[in-house]
């Protein structure tokens, strides 16, 4: 059932209402989760806007207080005095709902709610009443929610410590800090800063030369120069592509394997994303090409790239057995959470519980994707494609021919066997008689001796057994004959008996063959009548039931003489088998002649016939509601907006999302960029800007950034510069206990967050530190676990079926689902990798070799290692520790001491964390 019905999930949860006050948020939450759904599901049909039986409505607190014919239904605070509670208990004169008692926990929840004073949040509260899908009317309040409002560009606020603020961003941040009495910590030192920004922008460590250059550059523009250099590096796109690929749930196969659609050229999309970042592709194009690259005007140049861009959806998961509705859910979910920070997939089964998103909105978007096909665009000359297609067609034709031949020969065998009916019947009877004396006599041996097929003898035995024969009119004579025989003696050598048996068998065979002939004749007559335009009347002839049953049970595809698959070929005549063998040889030859599949781009195309979906009531495809015209989300559209009309509507959808007057997409995107730089978004739920998400910590800053981003033509690199050159970004990660007391999560940004490197950056940094990194960009993905894989982790194969163990272990998201941020977990299995993996061993050996290649003694090498790995000189104590270790380890035997030492340096917290 996929996600059908998932939405009411939180609702049946029987949680306790913590505080008995009618007006607080917990009360509202309890009502929405545990009370309103019960009322809507069970009561509103008869006591709501459409009907008000007994004069009672239960769709507002006032209505319940007013009650109906039976008086007030609700006494807040007094469940036992409330008529509502009395009737749902089902133990008094009136029992409601009439047909079914509510579940115990539902009754308990309603009691609890009345006891707490029956809090009923009004429409201004966080939640929304359930509305029928047919009336998606948006209120002014719906549109006035902060995320949907037009961008509000406020002037940067005044701050006391104006000297600290080097940009508008800083003034927005500092104003909030000052309001709380917080002070930013001192700035990061230059070593920490260049390490931080280099990893941030490229996912790689700075080289010692880059560090030295930065330290030596004392000009005011020193840091800006570093930022510009990094933004111009090809490694920048490789780093930032991966952020987006988490959201795009990029994968190159499927979770299932049986007949799964694979994406061997999926890397074209990954490479498109890298290039988009490196080229600083304007945001509007970034959005449009991914949604509708195939529909953009064909100006020749870059056509293939634009096709590859649609990989965002073309590479989406498809499920076992083609669960189309669940696939649409994935597309809508990825689209809306990815670009809009909205959980529109919540509205698959009913209107969104918390946000102004109707079921119509969901099906309007789903209809766009259901009007879209997955399409593979060949990347080869037409004749190559034609050769491949023709070769495959020949294989299919031959496969079909073989199947048809086997079917036909099996049918012939059955037909011939029908003419052997008497022999089989006699044989079965004989075998049964032999077994009276020899119970262990095997059918196989007996049948072989008789020149018959054992499976058919067995089936006849069963059919002719007294219990079975008695039930069949066509075996009446047989049954009376056999049941009169002595059941304890083998009669098969008594001529008189065998003659009788043979006659009965012949008679059955004659009846069978005659019935078959009559059946064929009747069928021929019926066919001829149809051709002649004669309507078969009620009295048209058909086989009598007994004959029909006989035919069905003996010669039909399920009958006694149907060749089982595993016997089909052995039972056929030698000449037929030889022919079959030749056909198979030819099939093998044809298969071998199929050339390798030509390369393709996995992309999208509009279907030839596009159309709207109808709303699936309760998410159920069997109960269809109104048609939902394909269009953009209502709350982000003008009330007069027309439905989409061009093809699937994807291009119109893309343009609606990327439109300058859509404030939400820009907010969502700049927030993701902020989150990647600071470890936390201004909105801490980057893919959920709805009411169940977190409100922004700095709403004015968010809008300022979004406006600035749009005004720059959607230049991401300009946005990076704005953010990175701020004093806020350049803070140190130093702890300040006073500030920590007030703002332990550092929401207000009084310091930089210390961060663990993502698995990609951590692995890449190791390869960089050992000078082994293969910086070749792009192209087919490679198995990350292959010992010789030294490319950036970005280029690893990403499997939905079996994600690489290293990636999974270090919090890489499941590529079956869009992911807005990675959890950060710290568990021993990860450290086993650090301590024992061949990967770490090889890196340690390479690092040791690299250091050994340079001149100098152990101390010089230790000092060099610290600079290479951590971007700073070693302290005297660290050098001492290293020298002592090397001495002890050398004395202790085992692998070279330097290998052991190098592995330690690669495994430290300092290597894995950024200040």
């Amino acid at each position, binding site marked *: *059932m*996929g996600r059908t019905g998932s939405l009411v999930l939180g609702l049946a949860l029987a949680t306790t209402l913590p505080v008995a006050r009618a007006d607080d948020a917990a009360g509202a939450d309890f009502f929405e989760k545990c009370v309103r759904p019960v009322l809507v599901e069970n009561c509103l049909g008869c006591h709501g806007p459409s009907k008000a039986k007994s004069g009672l409505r239960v769709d507002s607190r006032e209505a319940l207080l007013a009650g109906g014919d039976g008086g007030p239904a609700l006494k807040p605070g007094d469940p036992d005095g409330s008529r509502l509670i009395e009737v749902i208990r089902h133990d008094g004169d009136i029992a409601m709902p009439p047909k079914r008692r509510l579940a115990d926990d539902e009754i308990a929840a309603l009691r609890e709610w009345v006891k707490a004073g029956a809090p009923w949040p009004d429409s201004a509260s966080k939640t929304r009443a359930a509305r029928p899908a047919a009336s998606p009317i948006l209120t002014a309040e719906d549109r006035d929610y902060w995320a949907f409002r037009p961008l509000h560009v406020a002037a940067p606020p005044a701050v006391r410590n104006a000297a600290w603020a080097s940009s508008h961003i800083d003034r927005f941040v500092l104003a909030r800090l000052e309001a709380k009495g917080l002070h930013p910590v001192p700035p990061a030192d230059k070593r920490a800063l260049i390490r931080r920004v280099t990893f941030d922008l490229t996912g790689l460590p700075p080289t010692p030369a880059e560090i030295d250059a930065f330290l030596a550059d004392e000009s005011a523009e020193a840091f800006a120069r570093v930022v510009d250099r990094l933004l111009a590096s090809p490694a920048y796109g490789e780093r930032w592509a991966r952020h987006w690929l988490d959201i795009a749930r990029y994968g190159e196969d499927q979770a299932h394997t049986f007949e799964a659609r694979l994406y061997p050229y999926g890397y074209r999309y990954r490479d498109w994303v890298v290039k988009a970042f490196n080229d600083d592709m304007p945001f509007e194009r970034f959005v449009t090409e991914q949604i509708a690259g195939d529909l953009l005007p064909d100006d020749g140049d870059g056509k293939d790239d634009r096709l590859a861009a649609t990989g965002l959806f073309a590479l989406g998961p498809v499920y076992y057995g083609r669960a189309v509705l669940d696939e649409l859910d994935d597309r809508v979910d990825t689209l809306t959470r990815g670009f809009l920070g909205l959980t529109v997939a919540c509205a698959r089964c009913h209107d969104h519980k918390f946000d102004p998103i109707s079921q119509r909105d969901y099906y309007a978007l789903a209809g766009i994707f259901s009007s879209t096909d997955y399409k593979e665009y060949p990347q080869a000359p037409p004749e190559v494609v034609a050769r491949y297609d023709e070769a495959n067609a020949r294989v299919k034709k031959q496969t079909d021919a073989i199947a048809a031949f086997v079917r036909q020969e099996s049918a012939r065998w059955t037909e011939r066997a029908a003419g052997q009916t008497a022999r089989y019947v006699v044989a079965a009877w004989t075998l049964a008689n032999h077994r009276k004396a020899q119970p262990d006599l095997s059918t196989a041996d007996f049948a072989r001796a008789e020149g018959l097929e054992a499976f058919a003898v067995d089936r006849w035995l069963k059919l002719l057994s007294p219990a079975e024969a008695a039930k069949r009119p066509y075996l009446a004579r047989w049954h009376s004959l056999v049941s009169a025989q002595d059941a304890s003696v083998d009669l098969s050598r008594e001529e008189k008996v065998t003659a009788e048996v043979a006659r009965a068998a012949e008679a059955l065979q004659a009846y069978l063959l005659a019935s078959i002939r009559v059946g064929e004749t009747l069928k021929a007559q019926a066919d001829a009548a149809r051709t002649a335009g004669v309507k078969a009347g009620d009295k048209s002839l058909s086989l009598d039931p007994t004959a029909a049953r006989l035919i069905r049970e003996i010669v039909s595809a*399920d009958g006694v003489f149907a060749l089982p698959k595993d016997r089909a070929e052995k039972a056929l005549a030698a000449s037929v088998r030889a022919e079959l063998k030749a056909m198979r040889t030819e099939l093998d030859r044809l298969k071998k002649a199929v050339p390798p599949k030509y390369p393709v781009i996995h992309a999208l195309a509009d279907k030839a016939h596009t159309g709207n979906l109808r709303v699936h009531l309760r998410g159920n495809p069997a109960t269809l509601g109104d048609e939902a015209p394909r269009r953009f989300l209502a709350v982000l559209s003008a009330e007069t907006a027309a439905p989409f009309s061009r093809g699937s509507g994807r291009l119109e959808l893309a343009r609606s999302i990327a439109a300058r007057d859509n404030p939400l997409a820009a907010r969502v995107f700049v927030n993701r960029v902020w989150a990647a730089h600071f470890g936390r978004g201004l909105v801490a739920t980057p893919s959920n800007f709805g009411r169940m998400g977190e409100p922004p910590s700095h709403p004015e800053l968010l809008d300022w950034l979004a406006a600035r981003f749009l005004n720059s033509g959607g230049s991401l690199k300009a946005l990076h510069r704005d953010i990175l050159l701020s004093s806020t970004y350049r803070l140190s990660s130093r702890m300040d206990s006073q500030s920590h007391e007030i703002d332990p999560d550092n929401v207000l940004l009084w310091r930089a967050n210390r961060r663990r490197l993502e698995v990609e950056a951590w692995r890449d940094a190791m390869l960089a530190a050992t000078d082994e990194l293969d910086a070749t960009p792009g192209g087919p993905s490679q198995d990350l676990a292959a010992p010789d894989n030294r490319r950036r982790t970005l280029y690893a194969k990403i499997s939905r079926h079996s994600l690489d163990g290293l990636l999974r272990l270090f919090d890489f998201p499941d590529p079956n689902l869009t992911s807005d941020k990675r959890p950060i977990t710290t*568990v021993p299995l990860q450290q*086993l990798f650090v301590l024992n*993996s061949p990967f770490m061993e090889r890196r340690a050996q390479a690092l040791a070799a690299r250091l050994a290649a340079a001149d100098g003694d152990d101390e010089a090498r230790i000092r060099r290692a610290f600079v290479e790995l951590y971007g700073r000189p070693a302290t005297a104590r660290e050098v001492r520790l290293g020298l002592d270790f090397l001495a002890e380890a050398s004395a202790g*035997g085992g692998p070279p001491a330097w290998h052991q030492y190098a592995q330690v340096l690669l495994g430290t917290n*300092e290597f894995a964390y950024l200040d």
Partner: protein
Amino acid sequence: MGGGFGAVGLAGVLANDMTPARTGAFGSANPLAPKPTHHEPRAKRVIFLFMNGGPSHVDTLDPKPALARHAGEAAPESIKTSRKRAGALMGSPFSFRKCGESGIEVSELFPFLGECVDDLCVIRSMHTDVPNHEPALLMMNSGVIQPTRPSLGSWLTYGLGTENQNLPGFVVLCPGKPVVGPQLWSNSFLPGIFQGTHINNKAIDPQRIIAHIGNRSLAAPAQRRQLDLLQRLNEEHLGARGGRDSALEARIQSLEMAYRMQFEAQDAFDIGSESKATRGMYGDGEFADGCLIARRLVERGVRMVQIYYGNDQPWDDHADILKHRDHARKSDRPIAALLRDLKGRGSLDDTLVVWGGEFGRTPTSEGSRGRDHHSQGFSMWLAGGGVKGGHVHGATDDLGFVAIQDKVHVHDLHATILHLMGVDHTRLTYRYSGRDFRLTDVYGEVVSDLLA
């Protein structure tokens, strides 16, 4: 009710806000530490014996004499199996006998299990949604037919943590890989640490049973020396940063745990240290070894062990149901030994053992001597922690097609397993994509008749 677990245990520790700025969420507190339950648990750990491929219920635990009487006839018209090629009714080639004091009938396939029947709670009224392997495997393991949800074991370790930090909390044993594969023990949207640790027990070498569990070149003292240096450097690093950072400290601790895990895990998987008598009781073979390892793991505090009977889908006997004899021969003795062993050690009381496949098999043949997939009625059994012994729950119709009495859907089974583990299935939730998800989605009822 009351919010102990929901409000503090999960919402507090496992809030879905795990940005580094809030390392309090995952960085400092160990997410696998044992957590309080919603109510007193009846079982502390689960062993799920997964008969992948789908064992036939009418040949194992659900005797149908009527099937033999009607053998060869077409299935009743009213039965819609949704599988295309339903052949004639086929009686079981195996005989059943009443076993134990309870007199529950068990097929001749399971002579050893028959002797344990008074510890079994046999469910003869299981049903699931789809009679195809992939969706049914996903349903049995994650509660939905698409590969988009966390598995039972992931939910359990997420909700309850695990009792031994030196071992993975959720271990999956399979000689090779079952159909579908890793998605069956996937964490999905839960953090990656809740994924099952798959161990291919085709050949058990304690040295390599868990990825990177042992060092290839360093002896223990040398590795200790290496780790000491690593920790000294980490302390230096931490000291230079004020001496307090929960994330850095967590990694330091985690390194120590990893070091200890090497020895504990190797020990846990070393069935060579078991007595001859014990080895003899379990018998030989991959599955027998798996059962013995499972016992060693649960007694060391692993939360859930799932043992797949074999590579791919061995119980899928379309061609010849007599092949069940082979699977039974390989699994019957070890399963009975596991139950007896657990009982003898007093740990069956708080260990829940679950037996079953992704579905059952048709009472009809497929025109051959085998049976097809069947989802509308099949059998499973539970034993140990908190379930009735010597009890039969539910029934299929006379021919074994449809569960008709006291039906138990997979969601109900999940709800019941969680209940036995002390967890209210409606309150074990995870906020993802703007809503709270559960193992049982919006379904599932605890089957109270199964509870002791």
